[in-house]
């Protein structure tokens, strides 16, 4: 792999390591939740990166529908893969946090529930692509599906506040400036990792495609 890739990866390692060090060693525990809140430094950037990935999938899908360049579909697909990864991470860390702080691992909290629905939407996206044979049709159909999926997410959030109104929402934790800084550092690290992985994945699938085509034309 290229020098630049390794340098970027190294830099991101440092950023995330610094963030984690701050989160788990340097910063003090918080008033009500004590030490258990520290998982927030992983859960928060995960959740935001998940939304970034979802948005990129939608945008790339729309660009594919408009321009029909395979590049956009590769980006959409790679972003969806990473999105699923970060969604899973968010669900697991969020659930652990809830289990430790409030005793139950799942509370139908609006954000929690929306994340779970998002997980199913991502998985649906992959299944849809897998079950449509023609590659171009799969890309097109998946892009349309991602439009509906994306439109559903804000309504999912609103509906959980309306439909589950008896349940408490996750409160905001009082964050001092130093904590906020650590959170943003982690976010930058996570989004950086996402962007790097995205680029790598897109280049790899472009190379795969080129190799396939070369093999096809030379046979």
């Amino acid at each position: 792999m290229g020098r630049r890739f390794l340098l970027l990866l190294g830099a991101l390692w440092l950023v995330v390591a610094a963030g984690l060090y701050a989160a788990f060693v340097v910063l003090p525990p918080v008033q009500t939740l004590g030490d258990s809140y520290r998982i927030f430094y992983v859960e928060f950037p995960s959740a935001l990166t998940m939304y970034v990935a979802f948005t990129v999938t939608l945008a790339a899908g729309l660009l594919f529908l408009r321009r029909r360049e395979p590049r956009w579909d590769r980006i959409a697909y790679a972003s969806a893969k990473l999105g699923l990864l970060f969604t899973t991470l968010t669900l697991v860390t969020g659930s652990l946090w809830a289990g430790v702080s409030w005793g139950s691992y799942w509370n139908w909290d609006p954000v929690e529930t929306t994340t779970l629905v998002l997980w199913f939407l991502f998985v649906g996206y992959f299944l849809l692509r897998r079950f449509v044979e023609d590659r171009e049709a799969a890309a097109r159909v998946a892009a349309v599906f991602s439009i509906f999926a994306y439109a559903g997410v804000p309504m999912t959030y609103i509906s959980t506040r309306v439909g589950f109104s008896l349940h408490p929402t996750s409160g905001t934790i009082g964050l001092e400036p130093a904590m906020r800084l650590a959170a943003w550092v982690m976010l930058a690290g996570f989004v950086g990792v996402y962007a790097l992985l995205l680029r790598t994945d897109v280049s790899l699938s472009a190379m795969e495609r080129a190799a396939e085509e070369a093999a096809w034309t030379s046979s």
Partner: protein
Amino acid sequence: MGSTSTLLVRELREEFRTRETLSLVVLFALLVDLLYSAALGPFPEVRDVAPGLLWLLLLFTAMLTLPRGLAKEREAGTLEGLLASPAPAGSIYLAKMLAGLLFLLASLGVAFPVFFVLLGYPYPASPGGGLGVLALGAAGMAAVGSVFSLLLVQARAREMLLPVLLAPVLFPFLLSGVAALRKVLLGFPEEAGREVLLLAVYTGVMLTLALLTAEFALEE
């Protein structure tokens, strides 16, 4: 839209001739009522869960009924002809959607009252309102389910893929719908304003998106 009504009339005339789909849809909905009895036993305490059960009944019926629009064409060998026709994709979608909606409304008309009889539920406060909420539910499900059926026209394992795709997208709709229905059936329809608004907005948004994307779904 002239082509929409032409296509819709074609759908209905075909259905009126055989009444196959209608019988299956209504029968299925009634069977769900029967299965509920099996699942819950005689005279269960259903007041809390009745709204949810009714919405699930609608959802299951929709998942099986909505793909029939295209499946019928495929079975009759008319699918290619339909797709190749000059009718705009939006019209094809709208005709299938409205036909699907009519089937769902018919099944609700029968299965809704039977539900209350079979499960021994005391007469609900506002049955007309309840049916109204479920009718709106049918509209939203038909809007999304029909466009997804179009998306799946070239897919394998359609019968399983549709529910898998539909369920997470319909989740907010279902959640609001159950909340709305609960309030209506318990006699507080005035309190259901926000939920019904959400149902209406969802249906409107999805219908608009479907009309905008139908052509992409039906490309060859």
